[in-house]
């Protein structure tokens, strides 16, 4: 599954462990949102270039869901909230 690594700004306290990190935001396929719209949202929210956003959208479309970002739990909740604002269904999950 082609997911571009997303740079997450981390405060450099040295206290983070790997356990803080492996949270992901998942976008689920739905029958309403236009493919053009989902692609556009991924470009706008994550700054992905169009081909990358399109590939991610196709992953969601064909596989039923796809990981769109990864990082701390707080960052993933922010992403999910932003995506909900656009009408996509996104959930936060611990990537284990």
């Amino acid at each position, binding site marked *: 599954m082609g997911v571009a690594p997303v740079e997450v700004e981390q405060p450099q306290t040295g206290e983070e462990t790997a356990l803080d990190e492996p949270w992901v935001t998942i976008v689920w396929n739905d*029958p*309403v949102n236009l493919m053009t*719209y989902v692609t556009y949202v991924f470009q706008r929210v994550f700054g992905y270039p169009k081909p990358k956003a399109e590939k991610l959208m196709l992953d969601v479309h064909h596989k039923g869901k796809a990981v769109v970002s990864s990082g701390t739990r707080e960052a993933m909740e922010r992403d999910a*909230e932003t995506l*909900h604002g*656009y009408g996509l269904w996104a959930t936060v*999950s611990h990537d284990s």
Partner: protein
Amino acid sequence: MAESFHAVPGGAACYFEAAQAGVVRSLISQVAELVGSDAGTAAGTETVDDLEAQLGLSSHADPPDDPVLARLFPDGYADDPEASAEFRRYTEESLRSGKLACAQAVLDTLPPTGGEVRLSEPECQQWLRALNDVRLALSVRLGISDEDEDLTANLALDDPRAAYVWVYQWLAYLQDSLIEALS
């Protein structure tokens, strides 16, 4: 159905017939009313802490009963009701006000009698999300569960919702043109 958004310097423009403007305004208003009616920080609610209300926290823990609202405010965790409840508590009110602002932007820029609508880029963004909320709401009312299904198959010939199948498809066309104009 011929008119659609086209790019203009600084944004996009589209001509709306009066009937088209009426339909869009009506649907936007209905969705806004539904979204606004379910606020979880009602001042009269005894269970809402004053500080919580000031911080914009929702008193809602569970997904909304209304299926349209449930679609507009989905759970943040797929299999963790407690985490979902916390997520809802912290995000629902801000999501709600964002959706209402987008709906208001459409009402502010689309005259009831229609005409040439010219939008700035930020207004385009608000229209995009407001139109999407309307399509999501319509999809719930139309019982759309599969993107390939024949939309008319669900409905009896005299079902009043049948007219909305056309609107739903027209809004997709309109939304697509707006995305194209923004790209």
